């Protein structure tokens, strides 16, 4: 059993290392993704609102607007051109002169956040000459651990652990089934449990490589924090990987063709890409959906990774998440063993 398990594990790793595409998706892709997203959401400080003002507006209004460093003002001679610019989103609001002694008019699109922000800034700018000093003092959040990339990185890590777990096992298994290699092994005295177990052992080896590479990149290149214990972090990724190995085994337990397994995998992963808080917090979904989101293994993994990395959580704090991961892993593995199709 031990020798068989070792050889089967070695076999899987050899085959893995000999697939350049797979290496790309596992190692290069998440790093590229983190880089792109980090760049897209990098801290840009206060970005001014782009607003339009008609040349016919009173001088005082135009001056007050131009004086604000929160506004980037474009002056329009032609009302129609200005309205078109607003409709197309090139400017966030348009300021036009009011009738007779009325205050100026602000035209805006209330469905656009930028538009609403710009309205407030315009209001603020026009009131500024009437005030003696600032109404509030501001302290922007810039500490490490609260940037978008800090939120994103654990999510990407979780998503990668899920992706390689499911695809790695699913494709390999269905490929072997399709090649009738599973049948060939059935006529040998190979212990079946060793075969299934080899998926989990080889997964752990790959996991170590994958997580270490990503973590090193995150810590050094993106300055993502790891506040909690690295041992707990490692344990957590092992729980996550085992959970998804079980899920992968279950999803691939009966599929005969690569197309089938592709569809099944996407079907299983889709709810988690959206509902597990990879790119944005699942708390943005309606309250009623939160329990479902939290029951997903990827949510448990992401939440626990964030707790450990960002909040320095201890083992007790993430016990519920570990429980969810364990439950998924055990149940899936047990069902997979029952329904597994060897032919």
């Amino acid at each position, binding site marked *: 059993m031990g020798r068989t398990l070792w050889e089967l594990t070695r*076999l899987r790793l050899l085959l893995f290392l000999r697939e350049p595409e797979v290496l790309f998706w596992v190692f290069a892709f998440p790093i590229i993704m983190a880089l792109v997203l980090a760049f897209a959401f990098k801290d840009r400080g206060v970005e001014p609102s782009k607003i339009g003002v008609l040349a016919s507006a009173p001088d005082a209004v135009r001056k007050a607007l131009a004086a604000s460093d929160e506004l980037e003002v474009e002056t329009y001679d032609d009302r129609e051109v200005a309205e078109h610019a607003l409709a197309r989103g090139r400017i966030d609001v348009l300021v036009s002169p009011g009738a007779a002694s009325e205050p100026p008019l602000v035209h805006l699109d209330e469905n656009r956040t930028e538009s609403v922000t710009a309205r407030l800034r315009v209001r603020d700018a026009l009131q500024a000459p009437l005030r003696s000093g600032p109404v509030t003092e501001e302290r922007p959040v810039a500490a490490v651990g609260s940037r978008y990339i800090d939120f994103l990185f654990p999510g990407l890590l979780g998503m990668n652990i899920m992706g390689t777990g499911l695809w790695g096992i699913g494709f390999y298994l269905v490929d072997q089934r399709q090649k009738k290699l599973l049948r060939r092994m059935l006529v040998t005295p190979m212990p079946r449990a060793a075969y299934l177990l080899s998926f989990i052992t080889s997964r752990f080896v790959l996991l170590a490589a994958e997580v270490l590479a990503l973590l090193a990149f995150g810590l050094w290149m993106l300055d993502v924090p790891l506040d909690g214990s690295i041992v707990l972090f490692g344990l957590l990724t092992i729980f996550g990987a085992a959970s998804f190995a079980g899920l992968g085994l279950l999803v691939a337990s009966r599929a005969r063709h690569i197309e089938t397994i592709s569809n099944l995998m996407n079907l299983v992963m889709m709810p988690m890409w959206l509902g597990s808080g990879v790119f944005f917090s699942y708390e943005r979904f309606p309250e009623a959906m939160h329990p479902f989101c939290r029951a997903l293994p990827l949510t448990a993994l992401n939440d626990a990774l964030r707790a450990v990395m960002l909040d320095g959580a201890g083992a007790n704090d993430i016990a519920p998440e570990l429980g969810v991961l364990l439950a998924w892993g055990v149940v899936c593995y047990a069902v997979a063993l029952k329904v597994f199709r060897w032919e």
Partner: protein
Amino acid sequence: MSAPAVSAKGLVRRFGTVVAVDGLDLEIDAGTCLGLLGPNGAGKTTTIEMLEGLRRPDAGEIEILGMGWDRDGPRIRQRIGVQLQETMLQEKLTCDETLRVFASFYAHPRPRDEVMDIVGLVEKKGARVGTLSGGQKQRLALGCALINRPDLLFLDEPSTGLDPQARRRVWEVVEAFTSDGGTVLLTTHYMEEAERLSDRVIIIDQGRIIAEGSPQQIIDGLDAEAIVEFRIASDRNGADLPDGLFDDLPGAGSVRRSGDVVSFEVTDVQAAVFALLQRAKEHDVALDDLRTHRTTLEDVFVSLTGRQLRDG
């Protein structure tokens, strides 16, 4: 005589309403090779898979090396070698790595170099499976089946799809195994393969045995020394030939026509061919591709079923 290496009685296997194997009995004496010959869909693969323990028969009993699948599965598997039809080995592994994985399944594997030597792949040891020719892949698959020094070897169409030379090299490996005292069960639809490798042959059709014995016994059973075959050229005068034109030639047995090919089973080749040529001349018929060949298992199959082995 020692106990048979394989013994099966009354095997039945159905797939839905189709009866793939219909009450089949067979025995293989230790140290001999039994060839299971039949067209595609005759039930050869289903039969061999039941004997390999891959499928459960719906009825019947199987004993392998004196053991039963229900109780002794793992022990049987230690002692048999199997080559399945159309198994594809991992293309990205080398030959040696492939054998290494299979070796790890057995309690007492052979040294891998020894296996490479037996199947003639020593110089391909470090080559990826994907770079091998069809014949080399097949020999590697044979190597995987021999890695545990099996007493009994199951080969399901071992040379299908190979060119004649590659086929002969596969045969040499099998012959070396039997001459060392190994027992073989072989399925094939090549009569030449069955004749060359088998001590005994069972011809099956539609899940039943239709002939059994040594290749020579089965051929002798047809009571024809040779087969005479020719085509009738279609362009002479264009007139239809009278029915039964060649029916009563001296020394010739039953006549068979498929398309414009006519064939006879003959007991006296000289007399029959002489009479045939005379008859053709009398009726001004041109015979194309006239040839005779020694009776083969294929002819026996055609005679018994009216169909060819190859196209089932």
